């Protein structure tokens, strides 16, 4: 069972600074931070460690009182050096000074044949306490999955079409066995199917083709062809009351490793990308690593913006910031805090635009790689232009009306206009091309929260 879906609506953002497929010399980050803010929908943290404690990789650091089975665990072994707090003592993160040699908490090891006979409850218990569970994201809402649910189906997108996104085939080299094992475990959780979305435009990696008992859907076309939300919409759309789980391939591999090797392995390969990086390539590191050593001495200039993740959905961090829990990529672009004389009127071929309004010439040269900075290129205005969000959203919905329903806090409208089908990344392109410069992802999250807690 396999279908080929062509995605025509969307927009490619060709940025300069794609990572070369080489692995840099190992750099060891000093500290690691796990931030509750990385987990959307996280409500009330309960901290399990004190400053000065030593922890093993895979040992719980905190959990959410509202979903107290799911443990958020240390990515590396070491000493808890700081419980970072913000205003009103809000927990911002737990900082760990990493050991040179990682000491892992031990979980029962199983062979791949034993996996088949394992029950869901047994698997779930280990996954919850070891720290791999937060890799499972629930749709609607895009939050960490609730272990009490049985999802209608599970979706895994094996390719990322965001600007400068790393190649999962490279990130997970030689880990096909773990991927298959992870899939075998995940199959226990759903009565429906496990769907794997693969890139029809590229050669199918052996990592993903080895998985058994899954539905493989092929997707081709421009970004957001790799977004799991698009895959769900075209194969098994979410309606009111449905629950679907999604993972990225790294999460699946982590689950596979947990059972086959008995460890929570938070090591990952990430891509250092962006126009301001001297040599964009891949780096071996861990979840939550501090990026200082990775970017140090590798920048073309100092006035830059560091982004954990990609330029569409990522988060701005600083030079001494930390890699986000779900991110496989650091992007470095120029900071755009400058004025430009008559910038709104000047014809320009160097700034990318989806539009072709007067003087925007980038459409003449679609192959060019652009250096884009963080300038907003205009101020926020009321919605004026119509019919363009639909051109970059390959989901049968009307984003403009959904956003207006959210602004009006009209719950019925939000529901009917399909808020269950989307999370931030699905409307990120709308935010990029928006003439009126709205914070569309922010508005959407506000709506999701309204619906979730209604």
């Amino acid at each position, binding site marked *: 069972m396999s279908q080929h879906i062509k995605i025509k609506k969307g927009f490619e953002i060709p940025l300069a600074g794609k990572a070369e497929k080489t692995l840099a010399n190992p750099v060891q980050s000093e500290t690691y931070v796990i931030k509750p803010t990385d987990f959307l929908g996280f409500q009330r943290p309960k901290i399990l460690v004190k400053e000065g404690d030593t922890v093993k990789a895979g040992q719980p650091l905190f959990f959410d009182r509202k979903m107290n089975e799911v443990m958020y665990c240390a990515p590396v072994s070491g000493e808890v050096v700081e419980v970072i707090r913000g205003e009103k003592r809000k927990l911002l993160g737990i900082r760990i000074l990493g050991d040179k040699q990682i000491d892992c908490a031990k979980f029962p090891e199983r062979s791949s044949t034993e996996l088949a006979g394992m029950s869901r409850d047994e698997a779930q218990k280990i996954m919850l306490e070891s720290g791999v569970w937060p890799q499972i994201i629930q749709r609607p809402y895009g939050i960490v999955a609730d272990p009490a649910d049985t999802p209608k189906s599970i979706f895994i997108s094996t390719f990322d079409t965001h600007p400068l996104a790393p190649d999962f085939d490279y990130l997970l080299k030689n880990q096909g066995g773990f991927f298959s094992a992870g899939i075998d475990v995940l199959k226990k959780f759903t009565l429906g199917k496990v769907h794997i979305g693969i890139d029809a435009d590229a050669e199918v990696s052996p990592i993903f083709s080895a998985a058994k008992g899954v539905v493989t859907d092929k997707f081709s076309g421009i970004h957001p062809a790799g977004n799991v939300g698009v895959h769900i919409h075209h194969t098994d759309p979410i309606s009111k009351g449905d629950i679907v789980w999604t993972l990225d391939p790294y999460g699946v591999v982590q689950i596979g490793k947990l059972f086959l090797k008995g460890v929570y392995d938070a090591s990952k390969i990430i891509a250092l990308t962006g126009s301001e990086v001297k040599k964009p390539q891949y780096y071996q590191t861990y979840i939550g690593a501090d990026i200082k050593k990775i970017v140090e001495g590798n920048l073309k200039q100092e006035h830059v913006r560091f982004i954990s993740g990609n330029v569409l959905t990522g988060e701005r961090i600083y030079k001494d910031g930390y890699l986000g829990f779900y991110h496989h990529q650091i992007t470095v672009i120029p900071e755009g805090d400058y004025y*430009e004389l008559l910038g*709104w009127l000047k014809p320009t071929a160097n700034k990318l635009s989806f539009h072709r309004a007067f003087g925007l010439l980038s459409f003449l040269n679609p192959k060019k790689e652009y250096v884009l900075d963080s300038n907003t290129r205009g101020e926020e205005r009321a919605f004026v232009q119509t019919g363009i969000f639909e051109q970059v959203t390959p989901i*049968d919905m009307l984003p403009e009306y959904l956003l207006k329903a959210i602004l009006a806090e009209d719950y019925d409208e939000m529901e009917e206009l399909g808020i269950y089908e989307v999370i931030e990344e699905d409307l990120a392109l709308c935010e990029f091309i928006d003439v009126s410069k709205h914070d569309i992802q922010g508005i959407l999250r506000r709506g999701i929260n309204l619906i979730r807690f209604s």
Partner: protein
Amino acid sequence: MNALRNLLDKQKPLFEKGGKFEKFHYAFEAGETFMFTPNHTTGIKGTQIKDAVDLKRLMMTVVIALIPPLLFGIYNVGDMHYLATGEAATFWDKILIGMRVVLPVVLVSYTAGGIVEAIFSIVRRHPINEGFLVTGMLIPLIMPPTIPLWEVALATVFAVIIAKEVFGGTGMNVLNVAMTARAFLYFAYPTDMSGDVWYFLGGQQYADGFTGATALGIAAETSVAEGSQQVVGALSAVNHGMFDFWNIFVGLIPGSIGETSTLMCLVGAIILVATGVGSGRIIFSVFAGAFALGLIMNLAGANEFMNMPAYYHLAMGGLAFGAVYMATDPVSAAHTDTGKWIYGFLIGVITVIIRVLNPAYPEGIMLAVLFMNVFAPLIDYFVIQANKKRRLQRATV
């Protein structure tokens, strides 16, 4: 240019919160952002880069698309002047007369509207919107050349306040602002907006045998007068064949300042559609609607106006201008793609209904656009319901 930037930076604190001129913050901001795109950067979360487009550029594109009808209008006002008075004149004589008539109207429209926008930005504390860049140019182009300047000012002020600002400014309006300005004058000062107003005579008299009627006026007469001749024949009999089809198409005919030339409107349409700023769906379907009803009228053929070849409707009057520049206003038009087809088509249909079947108004595009502005949300409503229905059909709960 650094000097200019430094000057602005020095004045800026005065207009910030707590500054001496805090009230004028948005007026200052408007001026500043017209000179420099601001140094704002993207937020912590969300897209870290933004498309190079902004609302100013979008509006500027429309203004550029308005230049062909504007320039042609300037020439045509002069041309009509000399034609009506029967004097011989060179190209530059005509341009000179045209500029004398048109530029003050443009100036008055921009000034009156600009002042209202500025006052509202101060009182209502919202940014000055770029929408008026376009509105301020549209209003002069749909005025007769003989319009008194104070009426232009009054209509502009009325339209900006009643059609736009009371709803919350650009992006919130229901009606097309420029069309509202015209409709206001049309009903408040009908003698200045219809009848013998289409030639700027400048105090002189019509030449012998010259009539001041418009093509639509003559065509409308054929629908009421008994035993009248064919419209095409009636048209070509006026003023030495002035209303020959190609003349109507090119626009060397009397009418409002900028709307006479279908050709120039098509040039504007190409600019708008190629840049993606105006909706090709709307433009096409307005023409399609007018043409379709024109054909149906031909079949009915109850009077000579009904028998007029349907393509005449596309070139006569303000249909082309309305289709290209008025109906495509994204805020007051239908917002959904399907809705745009219906919205445009109905504008075309209603225009022809008013022209042919309603004896009171010779031209129908203005009322058709305003009427469909009001109905656009209803059309969208049904398109949205269809989208919701598709989603509901697969739901299980």
